[in-house]
């Protein structure tokens, strides 16, 4: 289990992470969503041991990060936002480097390289230089690398950023498989539909605080299962209203003079609703907000 206790990261007068308390369970697929500057990357960097906390603590399976960073490092696998592979080396050499850094015995390393490449469908490209790989292949290799030392937790910071839809979907399948095999996965993403499709639990982060935390279904349910979408011509803005059932939404639609669209609410609606609210904007259509 991962436990964050009063975790705080301050940059000057700004609290990038503000007294955050969170428990992520073993085998969970946890999604961290938030607008730009919400603190997602700071939090994932703190979990990755790259950024020290100002206050509070992180523990992974009872090991406190500040006490034994080295042990924590061996428990986590990291897929960062940037493609940080050695572009002049082959796929196999990149994995070899990682294994050597984690002091894996040679025979185990050879076996794990084959397994990881097999898992990510890159076995036939293992002797190719990374420079010639597509974005999707690089991402897959980063996952293979992160899995090489058999970590207990996989941290993924916007792993599908910049990928086309097909490559993204393939990566989703890979992540699903990993989680199904028991791996705890923590994912930050800008794509809300990605979190909705993959995560068993989602936390919305804004201004360094978790403002909502639940399963995607429950979060959607809390905001109202049906969304009424209308374009407000006075302010040239699309607005949404949320209702617990379609009938109430239809009734409301009849009272409006503009054309409307009634559809099931998705996690993105909930995300926009909650994060906009926290920013303090006044959205009159959001009267039927969180129950």
């Amino acid at each position, binding site marked *: 289990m991962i436990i964050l206790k009063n975790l705080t990261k301050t940059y000057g007068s700004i609290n990038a992470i503000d007294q955050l308390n969170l428990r992520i369970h073993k085998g969970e697929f946890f999604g961290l969503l938030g607008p730009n500057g919400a603190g997602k990357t700071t939090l994932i960097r703190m979990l990755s041991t790259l950024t020290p906390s100002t206050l509070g603590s992180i523990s992974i399976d009872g090991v406190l990060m500040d006490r034994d960073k080295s042990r924590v*490092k061996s428990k*986590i696998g990291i897929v960062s936002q940037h493609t*940080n592979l050695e572009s002049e080396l082959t796929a196999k050499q990149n994995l070899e480097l990682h294994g050597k*850094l*984690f002091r894996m015995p040679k025979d185990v390393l050879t076996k794990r390289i084959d397994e990881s490449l097999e898992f990510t469908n890159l076995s036939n490209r293992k002797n190719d230089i990374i420079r010639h790989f597509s974005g999707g292949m690089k991402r897959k290799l980063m996952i293979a690398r992160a899995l090489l030392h058999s970590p207990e937790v996989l941290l993924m910071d916007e792993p599908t950023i910049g990928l086309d839809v097909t490559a993204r979907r393939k990566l989703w399948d890979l992540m699903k498989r990993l989680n199904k095999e028991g791996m705890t996965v923590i994912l930050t993403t800008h794509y809300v539909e990605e979190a909705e499709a993959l995560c068993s639990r989602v936390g919305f982060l804004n201004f360094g605080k978790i403002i909502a935390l639940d399963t995607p279904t429950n979060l959607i349910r809390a905001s109202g299962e049906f969304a009424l979408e209308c374009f407000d011509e006075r302010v040239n803005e699309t607005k949404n209203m949320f209702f617990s059932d379609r009938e109430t939404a239809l009734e409301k639609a009849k009272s409006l003079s503009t054309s409307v669209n009634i559809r099931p609410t998705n996690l993105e609606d909930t995300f926009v609703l909650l994060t906009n609210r926290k920013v303090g904007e006044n959205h009159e259509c959001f009267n039927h907000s969180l129950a």
Partner: protein
Amino acid sequence: MNVLTILWHEQKIFKQKFWTITSSSMISPLLYLIAFGWGLGSEVIISGTSYMNFVMPGIVAMTTMTVSFGTVANSLNISRTYDKTFEEFMTSPIRIWEYAIGKITAGALRGMYSAVLIIIIALFFKANIIVTGFFVLVAFLNALVFSSLGFVVGMVIDSHLEMSKFTSFIITPMAFLSGTFFPIEKMPFILNELIRILPLTQSTIGMRTGTPLSQNAWISPSILITYFLLFLFLSIRLCKRAE
């Protein structure tokens, strides 16, 4: 021992980029040898020897400096600020001083490789260069000094622009003023004394001496060791801070 892993990594990159590294290491010294060796070599006598023989140890020292410094400073800077590969090392259970020592040693070895290339080229220019054990020792210390300086700079500076500024304001002037192309005795007294404490000057003096038996021969290696230990200490401090 993770130092060996870092060296393994650098060796793989070296192997991959062998021809690029080899040709780029040769271009500058080759041009200097053509200009100052062929162009002036036979006409000018300095300190009782031909200019070609005078300038050779300086060119070896200068190239070792630029290659060792550039290899470490640029690769580390790019790794930290551009391709973020530095994070791969920082998130592994490697002890960070091992990373520093591995990078510095690899940079110094790259500098020594370029020194070997120049000495081979110098044979074609019929330069009379005597490579003694002492010469090799001073060259290696010089490579270590600038490799560790490169590490410090690569860790501190956060942009390519600042990196090239450092090279323009520190490395290039040092290359030209440290007795590479002319005896430093020809400089005005105060400048002469200032230049004498620069590591490249000590390397050039040590390599020109070529023997540990001459008077004050060990001054240069001692000064270079002091510089190296200072830069190594700073490198490890910076690594710990980054960790």
